[in-house]
């Protein structure tokens, strides 16, 4: 920086120290806990453990995270989002270990595994993978199911959730693939798939009578998601990425591994049935954020935990009222906070830029000479693009049963709108989402009608 007076620099940069060579303790060869075995496992900034003690410590950490939350009740059914990748495989091991503890320490919930098949194109690999996961979960003894992500295009009651060893229903795969192709870039595709996956997990949990879901996000995953969410304009949602419990809907999504570093999951030395493909060079913001986080952590350790803890400390800025029709129909986050009064905002700035780049000034600025432009400026910014605001002839009553692009737009947050930029949103939004929009629009209309009588 330092373009002199414009320096935002404030001197704190130097507080972040570069990684130094690990100071190894002198008795590094012995496990710090049992002091008799060799220390095979060296965690950053700590002395080493032997394999047995390491597993004991992580098992304890896992149970402590669950215990501390006081959210899980006796005998509750919990859905595990199992991808076959390392983290969720470790999660299964941790649960298994917790179930076989002595009575007073034992985990007391019922585990149900769901495998969401999202590799839509690779037909051969996918059935092999599903087969491997079926074998893995059979050994674990938990009830296991599988579903293709494309089922999310159907209405919930027609869904096909199959036991893991049966062939799953791929009927919508081509349709979903076509929708993704129609989106403008890989960033939108990844974001859309992430949102659909979350919707799918929630609905699947409901159908399988689970009211909580475990996802296997480690601190590293969370920091990565936080950074990419910031870049996607999802600043209001950072806390739901980082908090232990995401309670945006009636079904809660929990992150019992959020205090685990990637290093800790790797030290379990488990070979997952599915490995993660690196995407270099990154073609999406999510992949870019992932590479950036990992690179920065390798040079300045502590970056990941700082990002994670920062996100844990913030919340969305919001208007007071809070009911379902004020949430985004796709991501369930609150709709954008629009400050009262004439505060400037990025959203307003974008509207002004759009207007200025699409209309000739001669036609809009001629009305502007009165009062030195002091009064309320030539653009009146409003969030609803269109319909009956000032149009007496509008026949919006007739449209009540139909959904317009404006309706959909109005019920999506800033970032979810970005997904459908330059694409036909009415065509591309899955049916359950269109229904959700319709429901929200109807609720809103009802609330407006009775608003005078609400206390």
């Amino acid at each position, binding site marked *: *920086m*330092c*373009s*002199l*007076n*414009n*320096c*935002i*620099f*404030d*001197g*704190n*940069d*130097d507080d972040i120290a*570069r990684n130094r060579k690990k100071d190894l303790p002198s008795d590094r060869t012995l496990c710090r806990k049992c002091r008799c075995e060799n220390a095979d496992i060296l965690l950053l900034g700590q002395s080493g453990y032997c394999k047995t003690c390491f597993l004991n410590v992580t098992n304890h950490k896992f149970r402590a995270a669950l215990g501390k939350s006081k959210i899980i009740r006796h005998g509750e059914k919990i859905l595990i989002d199992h991808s076959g990748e390392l983290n969720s495989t470790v999660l299964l091991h941790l649960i298994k270990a917790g179930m076989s503890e002595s009575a007073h320490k034992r985990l007391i919930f019922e585990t149900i595994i769901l495998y969401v098949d999202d590799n839509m194109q690779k037909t051969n690999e996918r059935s092999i993978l599903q087969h491997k996961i079926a074998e893995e979960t059979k050994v674990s003894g938990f009830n296991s199911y599988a579903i293709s992500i494309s089922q999310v295009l159907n209405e919930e009651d027609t869904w096909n959730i199959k036991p893991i060893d049966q062939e799953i229903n791929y009927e919508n795969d081509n349709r979903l693939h076509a929708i993704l192709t129609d989106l403008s*870039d890989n*960033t939108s595709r990844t974001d859309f798939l992430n949102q659909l996956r979350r919707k799918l997990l929630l609905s699947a949990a409901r159908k399988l009578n689970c009211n909580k879901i475990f996802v296997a996000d480690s601190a590293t995953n969370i920091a990565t998601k*936080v*950074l990419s*969410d*910031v*870049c996607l*304009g999802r*600043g*209001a949602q*950072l806390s739901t990425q980082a908090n232990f419990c995401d309670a945006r809907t009636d079904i809660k999504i929990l992150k019992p591994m959020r205090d685990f570093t990637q290093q800790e999951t790797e030290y379990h030395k488990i070979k997952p049935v599915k490995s993660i493909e690196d995407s270099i060079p*990154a073609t999406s*913001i999510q992949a*870019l954020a992932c590479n*950036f986080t990992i690179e*920065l952590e390798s*040079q*300045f350790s502590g*970056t990941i935990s*700082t*990002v994670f*803890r*920062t*996100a844990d*400390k*913030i*919340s*969305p*800025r919001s208007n007071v009222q809070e009911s379902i029709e004020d949430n985004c129909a796709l991501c369930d986050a609150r709709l*954008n906070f629009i400050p009262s009064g*004439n505060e*400037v905002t*990025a*959203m307003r*700035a*974008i509207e002004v*830029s759009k207007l*200025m*780049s699409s209309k*000739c*000034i001669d036609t809009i*600025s001629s009305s502007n000479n009165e009062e*030195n432009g*002091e009064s309320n400026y030539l653009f009146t910014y409003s969030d609803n693009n269109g319909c009956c605001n000032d149009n007496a002839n509008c026949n919006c009553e007739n449209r009540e049963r139909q959904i317009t692009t404006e309706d959909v737009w109005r019920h999506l947050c*800033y970032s979810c709108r970005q997904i459908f930029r330059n694409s036909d949103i009415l065509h591309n939004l899955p049916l359950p989402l269109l229904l959700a929009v319709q429901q929200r629009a109807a609720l809103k209309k009802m609330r407006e009608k009775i608003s005078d009588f609400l206390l």
Partner: protein
Amino acid sequence: MSSFPQCSTKCGKNAILKRPKTGDTLCKECFFSAFETEIHDTIINGKLFKPGDKVAIGASGGKDSTVLAYVLKTLNERYKYELDLFLLSIDEGITGYRDDSLKTVTQNKDDYGIPLKILSYKELYGWTMDSIVAEIGRKNNCTFCGVFRRQALDRGAAILKVDCIATGHNADDIAETVLMNILRGDIARLHRCTSVITTGADSIMRCKPLKYAYEKEIVMYAYFKNLVYFSTECIYAPNAYRGHARAFLKDLEKIRPSSIIDIIHSGEQLQVKDNVKMPKRRNCTQCGFVSSQEICKACVLLEGLNRGLPKLGIGKSSKAKKIMNLHMDKKNKPQNIDL
């Protein structure tokens, strides 16, 4: 030969540029008008100024402050803001750097007919950057030039009794700051870094009229208006960490140009949870300017320099505080700045 597309505003002219911010193609006149009107919109709706305000434009000779000075002067005349504008430059005393950029600022003064006031680090702090570097070497000099510079404008503005300081922070700078504050966990700054106006107790109001202007568009504007600016990065290069954040932002912009403003939107949509303790902002007991500590960083650094312990305040703040307190009682009040 119409190899150029039409201007998106349908003004009838050929477009000569594609706006990085919106992707629209515009002709020169429509671009000028869009760029200026957007800043006008920020000024009016953000209520940045009142009629009669004495406004100091933080002028470095760089592109941002040069464009800011030009646009503010233009808008002040066009929309009759009735502002008393002048340029405020700080001379850090960096040989070969400031000489050239001050020449640019002086030329801006002549070109735009805005009065110029130059204050030197020597006048404000008793030290030039060159003498500081001679004392501490190049390793931590950015701590000094950042901390001193931040306060220099406040100190200068207080001496000159201005109502408001307008700085040239652009959208890219703000997005970068949002990222930096998340990366280093500075929730207090994360909370306020997206505000278009900042005021501290007793400190002068600062505003950022270019908050939503893309750096690329600022360069375009200067280029097509033939505005002269001085373009060299500080010779004392920024540290590695901020460099990474900046490179990341550039990569993001390549993938999705809107991400700069998307990040600002993110910053505007969040707040610190109610139950999280925030560091109180208060005034430095030595110099009286805003500080999060009892003694502000500038005063700690100065104290170190004056006492021949230049590393003071660079490392752990607790250690610095201990040393400071030890010597506080013995020390007289700091010299006032005479001008």
